[in-house]
């Protein structure tokens, strides 16, 4: 564990709707340009992932994933509280 006492002036967000895989993202900013809510900004470095500046504003439409040219570069995920439960029907019948 790090003993570095330097901390950013920020907090963990209430949810993280969009997680970008920096290994797959080519920084094309297609997601930045399609997002109707405009929650991204282009990353400070060309060719690097954009920044999810306003995660709380996400409407979860999925357009960013739909236009992303790199399969799996963006993961859109509903917050934990909104993840519905399912079960195998055979389990219920036991």
């Amino acid at each position, binding site marked *: 564990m790090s003993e570095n006492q330097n901390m*950013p*002036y*920020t907090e963990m*967000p*209430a*949810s993280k*709707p969009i997680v970008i895989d920096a290994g797959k993202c080519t920084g094309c900013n297609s997601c930045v*340009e*399609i*997002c*109707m*809510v*405009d*929650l991204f*900004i*282009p990353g*400070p470095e060309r060719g690097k992932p954009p*920044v999810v*500046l*306003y995660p*709380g*504003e*996400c*409407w*979860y*439409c*999925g*357009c960013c*994933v*739909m*236009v992303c040219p790199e399969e799996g570069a963006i993961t*859109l*995920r*509903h*917050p934990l509280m*909104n993840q*519905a*439960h*399912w*079960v*195998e*029907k*055979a389990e*219920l*019948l036991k």
Partner: protein
Amino acid sequence: MQEFKWPYPLDYGKEEKITADVLILGGGIAGCMAAISAARKGQKVVVVEKGATKMSGAGGSGCDHWESAATNPCSKVTPEELTQAMLDDNDGYNNGISHYIECREGYDRLLDIEKMGGKIRDTEDEFVGAAFRDEATKLMFAYDYENKITLRVWGTTFKPAMYREMKKLGIRIVDRVMVTSLLTQSGNQGNRCIGATGLHTRTGKFYIFSSKSTIMCLSRPARIWMFSSDHTGLCEFRPTQCIGDGHAMGWRIGAEFTMMEKSVRTEFSAAGRSYPPYGAGNNHNSWYGASIIDSTGKEIPYADRDGKILKSVEERFLPAKGQKFFMKGGSVDDPKHAIEGPETLPFGDMLKKGYKLPFYADLTTLPDTERRAIWGMMIGEEGKTRVPVYENYKKAGFDPTKHVLQCYGTGWTSASFLPQERQLFGLPGGFLNDWELKTNIEGLYAAGDCLYASNCYGHAASTGYYAGRHASAYALKEGIIEPDKNQTEAEKKRIYAPLQNNPETSIGWKELNMGISKTMQNYCGDAKSDDLLNTGLKILKNYEKDVVPATFAYNPHELMRLLEVFDILTVSQMIIYASLARKSSSKVLCFNRIDNEQEETENDRRLITLRLAENKVVYDEKPLDFFGDLKDNYEKFNQDYMGGKQNV
């Protein structure tokens, strides 16, 4: 303080002037179809959109149902019968004009979208032989398979197709600009609308649009009662940026509104108790026809409107004995007997009979085509389900032939809300329109969700296209009028004012939105009285006087959010003014007066309208059937469209 460099140039206060014959405000479904219609009439068209037109708006990311396509070749219901059913189902409190347009022209728009490249039929023959598929046309239907008025469509293909068509027609699209106000001749309230102003949401630049005619295609108000600072985007069913800017700016220039007193107990808010729409177990809308089982696997029976238990899955899609047709979908919340369709027996009754919670939606026992239509096609095409529900659940292992999905509520909702937690939903109030979809303001037309008692994709597309035709006819006979300098300068001053404030001592948009929402829950919730409403109005007016001048935004994006909340504040006051004017309770308007619980009498059954004149609220009323005979009036106003000229 951690700092970063804003990635866009900051152009606060800089001006760009743009002129158009027909100016379209909002690039959603209604706006795009309005633009296409006006451009086909030879007009120079400009569309202003807060997001990115290619996929923005409530229907931008997809849609799985197209309702009320009464003129499709398989329909057994006429536009007149269908519109009348919608009117009757709401005791007349509905928009006869706009819904007749939807019923009469909706299918024309579908064919139009198909020509643009949208997919409206099962061209790949994936559902050959299914009960819901017409083999000759390959059209696929939902709900009532006998009468075939609602289509299943591949809506994710629609908006990109419209966008390509707009480009082809040379329409100028101005994305990332929030419309902030409407401009009027000489700058006076009630005068002809001659354009609009806008704010670039990334650079902060100021836009002045001049036009011969203008079509309001912005959405309906939201976040009036429901707000979450952590999950703003999940507060309401429609997108984050759709909060009723159009209502607020229309109100300020004297446009007339009706049914603004109607609000319903919240049906959906995933920032609160709801689950993502169509992402939890249910048997409505996209999921209609699904079986519902209890936690021991026992099925809850479906019954027809007369209580007859339905033994087969096929019967879930057929009208009852002696019933002409039934209706389901976005505009049908609490159907009357005439159009009531099959439904599972009430969950409460089932619990009393020993059924065990939780309940689940079960697709495993459905015919294969029904299961693939619901889980593959519909959930794959609906606006907010393709990625976060269909793709994600699949990745997490959900298999509709094996798994059952939990229900968290009854009907299409997945939660129960408190009486004071309200929304403008289920045919809410909006702009009052005439047979040209013109408002009371000369030169200003309205279409889609901003109209009173509006709903759904087909309604937006057909009213948009219709308004485009009529606004073009107006533009052909009128000229451009130079905006009034005082009016544009006053608007500039208003929208940039928060930037001058001190961030250390000012408040942000979220705090103001929460304050408004709590005020509305407290004073304009389910239980309404003059005393409560007047107290609420006083508090909102104080917000306007004391709080609005003490707000701050760090960048153009936050400034947009703040201006949205100013509009929410305006709309909240409109709702209170409208509520004060309705003196008795009305079940169909979900309007409950605790100082007059008596249900409305025949005399009270009127549309109450309201507008500003010389900054005073002016009330008026209209009979519920003010639009006259639907067919006669439609034909009187649309001779140029009829007779095989549907794509002109």
